């Protein structure tokens, strides 16, 4: 992939899903044994060009996700490097036991890509939103979970996951006109978080589309005299324990921001490590508070669930105030 300002802008405009399609198209050139499997979502996953260019490296299984995972495992057992993709709820929970048995337990290597995860499809209701995928897949041993911050990171994550020997789930959030977090090339390594801002009071861990919102929140917090570090925790499993240890030493408060249920996701992952750290600071977990709300536009739902930059700012300020009073 040619990384330059123009391409980064294009990827941002078309969003993570279409960027995934472009990345697949590029990777198919160099990876002979690549197979991309979908369940009647080639257009939604930005794979129309891929499908036409590489018909031999593409398989549409129809609207049948359980079968897709089994077929993926069968292809993998014969040496193919397999990517599966469909909308996040159907890529994960619909075929969860097939993932457990074939990919987790049997260890057939597959890279799964869940498109439009989080709240992006809020107009369609919570059948199509996905706030449970990290929690569900995190309990299956052997699956790496990645939540890219922007379209460019989606491309990097896909390449890394395909070239890795481990199975993975790439969780795509955001929509078209995906805000740009990375304006230039950087080093992406599975399991190694990226510190985007350095601050002394608070450390915000974030993933997916919430990275941009957290960066914006940080600017507003600075205006309020609160200095924040921002860490892009693009890999949620395995979690970057060193980054958490480091934050424990240097911050008064830890915050996690995610477009996922507060149960089972990034905040849970961090807290599972945090309980092993002596005298660790508190962790404020910001996400969807274990509820299926009424639907609405992406922005409306982010606001409603406290994930807009302003809401994140207020939540952190209130938490700090309470701590000071306590």
């Amino acid at each position, binding site marked *: 992939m040619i990384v330059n300002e123009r391409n980064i802008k294009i990827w941002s405009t078309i969003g993570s899903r279409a960027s995934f399609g472009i990345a697949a198209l590029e990777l198919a050139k160099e990876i002979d044994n690549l197979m991309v499997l979908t369940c009647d979502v080639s257009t939604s996953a930005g794979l129309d060009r891929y499908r036409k260019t590489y018909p031999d490296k593409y398989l549409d299984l129809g609207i049948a996700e359980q*079968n897709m995972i089994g077929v993926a495992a069968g*292809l993998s057992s014969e040496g193919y490097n397999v990517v599966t993709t469909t909308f996040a709820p159907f890529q994960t929970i619909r075929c969860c*036991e097939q993932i457990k048995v074939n990919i987790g337990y049997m260890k057939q290597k597959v890279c799964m890509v869940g498109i439009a995860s989080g709240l992006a499809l809020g107009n369609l209701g919570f059948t199509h939103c996905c706030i449970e995928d990290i929690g569900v897949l995190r309990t299956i041993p052997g699956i790496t979970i990645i939540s890219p911050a922007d379209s460019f990171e989606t491309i990097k994550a896909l390449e890394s996951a395909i070239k890795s020997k481990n199975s993975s789930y790439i969780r795509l959030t955001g929509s078209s006109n995906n805000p740009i977090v990375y304006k230039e090339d950087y080093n992406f390594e599975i399991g190694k978080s990226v510190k985007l801002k350095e601050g002394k009071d608070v450390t915000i861990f974030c993933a997916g589309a919430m990275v941009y919102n957290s960066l914006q929140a940080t600017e507003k917090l600075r205006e309020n005299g609160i200095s924040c570090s921002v860490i892009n925790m693009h890999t949620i499993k395995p979690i970057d324990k060193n980054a958490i240890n480091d934050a424990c030493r240097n911050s008064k408060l830890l915050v996690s921001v995610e477009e996922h249920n507060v149960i089972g996701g990034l905040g849970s992952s961090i807290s599972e490590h945090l309980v092993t750290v002596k005298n660790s600071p508190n962790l404020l977990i910001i996400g969807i508070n274990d509820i299926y709300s009424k639907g609405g536009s992406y922005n409306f739902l982010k606001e409603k669930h406290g994930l807009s930059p302003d809401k994140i700012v207020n939540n952190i300020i209130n938490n700090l105030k309470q701590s000071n009073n306590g």
Partner: protein
Amino acid sequence: MEDKNKNIQKIKKFSVELRKNILEMAYSAGAGSSHFGGALSIVEIVSTLFSYKMRINKDPNWDDRDRFILSKGHACLAYYAALCEVGYISKEELKTFEKDDSNLLGHPVINKKLGIDFLNGSLGMGLSLGIGVSISLKKKNKNNSVFVVLGDGECNEGSVWEAAMAASNFKLDNLYAIIDKNNFQQTGSSQDIMNTDSLKDKWSSFGWDTVSLNGHDIEELYEYFNTSQDLKKPRAIIANTIKGKGFSFSENNNDWHHAVLTKSLYEKGLKELI
């Protein structure tokens, strides 16, 4: 004709050895009990495949081997017994069946050294694996076949039909689904729980070349596997079988779905081996 008789005798002998191995494993499982009935109903099917039909050799990882998937994984006693007869699993290892840290659990766990190509146990998943393998072999221009053994009770699972639809859609003529129709499932007869009488029509309407035969009649199985047709579609065999086949105490007795083989019944079983 002489070849046919010779082959049929070979398959018959293999079946006797499988039942003997199954008895040994079930007995060594002791109070742990085992899925006895559903393993015995597939003995002739597995024997025909492993001793005659399937292309295999001494190397369990031979690239040109035919692939076998036991989708009804709980019938693994028959599978392990066959892998022992073809030399991949030792008699000694068979005795570790369901023991602590064993390679041979009550459902097959992938183990390339022992010739176990896939992991199964949760019903309704094996045919999808078979499709993936079948497509892979075609892509590599290999003319090997893939054999998947399913249960009739297993056909209650919706995922079986997702796979059935896909296999005919992709015209996978190197794929066989052998449905062990023993008319029982865990807690009773299929007739009472989820009627499977029209299985042949179902597979046929899903686009498979479907036959119904006696799954214990080696000559019938032999004839079927010797009929080569250019069908351009996957093949389903509804194998009419008897759960617990081969021993007077277990035939058609669903108490033997998962049960303990006592010393006296083990000895009785040994005497009944023919």
